[in-house]
């Protein structure tokens, strides 16, 4: 991932919210690079900041959010402090988005075809409506909707969850974006439909050489689609690297613990391992490592208590933010 001028470069991105209970640091100093054809899977539980991270990259955070970063570059362009007009040029055109709940992302009062038409026409003022409609049907066919020309005239409530998500993906791809951001796109779907949609995303990425950021709470889902994985905890990336590396040979205690408590069909009858304690609340300033209290290794270590570990690159290309990395538990 350490390539020269990657498609997306994020340097020290932080997002803070002003709330009645104080300043909430949802994302804290996140760095990563992403290139064409790569998929970065961002994994985390509640409070990890993964959704806020995704939303900050497309400028859809509420006004109470403050986004700071040393730099955010997308295809050479700065993605910081953009005006609404500049965002509109990028959103939906150079960056496509797919969110979790297909029902809320679609307008129940308009046909699917009309909505895809709109996604296209916003960025293509010079196309005729017939051309646009033709393109919409094409897109639906390319995402695996059977009998697209007839079904496109139906309303969202007539489509199943999996089909709606395909429609959303079609809309996201309508203007040939370079980057696709998907936030839990398969979480609301049945598991057999999930495999179909994941297959679809993989195919699309291969054909079009798109970069993808795939956010999920599920290690397994991320493992099946991402080339690289970033594990988030309490607003920080605590481990980052090739997905096979991170998921099969985790370095950070949190990643290890997450992998350990992941339920597997193959482990029939085995007792699940757990992580003690509760997920973090990211209010105010904290000292030391955020995971320390729940960490078997660092709970009593003074270094973990005093200093927040930096994300450091290791020899094999992986980054870990841990004072204890290299120590076997």
């Amino acid at each position, binding site marked *: 991932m350490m390539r020269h001028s990657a498609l997306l470069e994020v340097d020290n991105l932080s997002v803070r919210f002003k709330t009645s209970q104080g300043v909430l640091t949802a994302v804290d100093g996140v760095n990563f690079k992403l290139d064409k054809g790569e998929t970065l899977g961002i994994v985390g539980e509640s409070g990890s900041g993964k959704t806020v991270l995704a939303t900050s990259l497309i400028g859809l955070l509420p006004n109470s959010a403050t986004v700071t970063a040393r730099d955010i570059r997308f295809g050479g362009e700065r993605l910081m402090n953009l005006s609404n007009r500049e965002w509109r040029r990028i959103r939906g055109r150079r960056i496509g988005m797919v969110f979790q709940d297909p029902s809320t992302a679609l307008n129940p009062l308009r046909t699917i075809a009309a909505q895809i038409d709109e996604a296209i026409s916003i960025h293509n003022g010079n196309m005729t409506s017939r051309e646009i409609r033709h393109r919409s049907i094409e897109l639906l066919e390319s995402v695996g909707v059977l009998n697209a020309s007839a079904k496109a005239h139906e309303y969202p409530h007539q489509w*199943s969850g999996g089909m709606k998500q395909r429609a959303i993906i079609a809309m996201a791809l309508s203007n040939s974006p370079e980057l696709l951001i998907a936030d839990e796109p398969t979480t609301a779907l049945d*598991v057999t439909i999930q495999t179909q949609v994941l297959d679809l995303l993989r195919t699309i990425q291969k054909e079009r050489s798109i970069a993808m950021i795939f956010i999920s709470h*599920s290690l397994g889902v991320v493992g099946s689609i991402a080339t690289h994985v970033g594990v988030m905890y309490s607003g920080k990336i605590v481990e980052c690297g090739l997905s096979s590396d991170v998921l099969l040979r985790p370095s950070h205690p949190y990643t290890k613990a997450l992998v350990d408590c992941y339920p597997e*069909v*193959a*482990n*029939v009858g085995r*007792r*699940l*391992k757990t992580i003690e304690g509760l997920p973090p609340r990211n209010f105010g300033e904290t000292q030391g490592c955020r995971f320390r209290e729940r960490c078997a290794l660092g709970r009593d270590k003074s270094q973990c208590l005093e200093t927040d570990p930096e994300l450091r690159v290791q020899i094999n290309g992986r980054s870990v933010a841990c004072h204890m990395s290299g120590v076997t538990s």
Partner: protein
Amino acid sequence: MSSQVATTNRLTVNNLSFKFRTRNEFTLRDISLNVSTGETLGVVGESGCGKSTLLRLLVGLLTPTSGTVSFSGNQLDSARTRARRAEKPAVQLVHQDPFASLNPRMSIRQIIEAPLRVNHLDTSRPRIAEILDMVGLSRSVLRERPAQLSGGQRQRVAIARAISLQPEVLLLDEPVSALDVSVQAQVVNLLTDLQQSLGFACVFVSHDLAVVAHVAHRIAVMYLGRFMEVGSTRAVLAEPAHPYTSALVRAVPSLTGAGPKKGFQSQVVGELSGDQLEVGCNFRDRCWAAIEKCADVSPHLERLSEDWHVACHYPLNR
């Protein structure tokens, strides 16, 4: 997992069928099952298979169209009848959404005391403390309201409420689906421990095959209102007999298998049609192993071996 000799059958369901008044098709057809003391039956299926409806029938909120549900030999009354008769319920249900299942305007103490009071049971401090200990909650939560607790804590409160009545059968409707995976593990282990110490029979409904694998002794796979395969979890998941079970198993993302799932065979095509067919197997349109007979004759659960039944004309490991 050993064969259990002389254990008490706590829950018996015989040929249960159910149709909502407002719908044309049956939501459940010919469901039969047995669960004994200390045993967990996992019911697995995707959306629309009828698993939640099954639970509502088991707990008396719905009345079967045909078939029977009995607890330790006594036929189930509707929930209303039970309340009228003021009998301590033999079956309790833990709902999926721990936020919705707790009254937002009551304190945790009130929530835990309520079922005890209604059934004229001990509500003294030591008893409440005992219940809290069983589910791993500290005394300090008693003062709080549901909104102040985390998802995992709320689910523990819901479980506490259910087991405080010492039910013979505990039904769980996707109890960990709304929780983070680390919290999910805590709650799953809690349920296993509680079952060992309290000995209730348990029906664990979930769409998550991996979670069910860890918690259920036996498993029943549902599709469009029917059981497709029922057997010991180990046997069924290791070598599924029904094509649908096989597809489900292959579809679960695993950490150990790197990369995309291979082989057309493992993929289920198309969507749930939602239509129950009078004739033939409901699954045939999406099944890669379908033969002619599948369109003409409805398969019934047939014995494959001791404690393994499959509803398929062409099981995978025949």
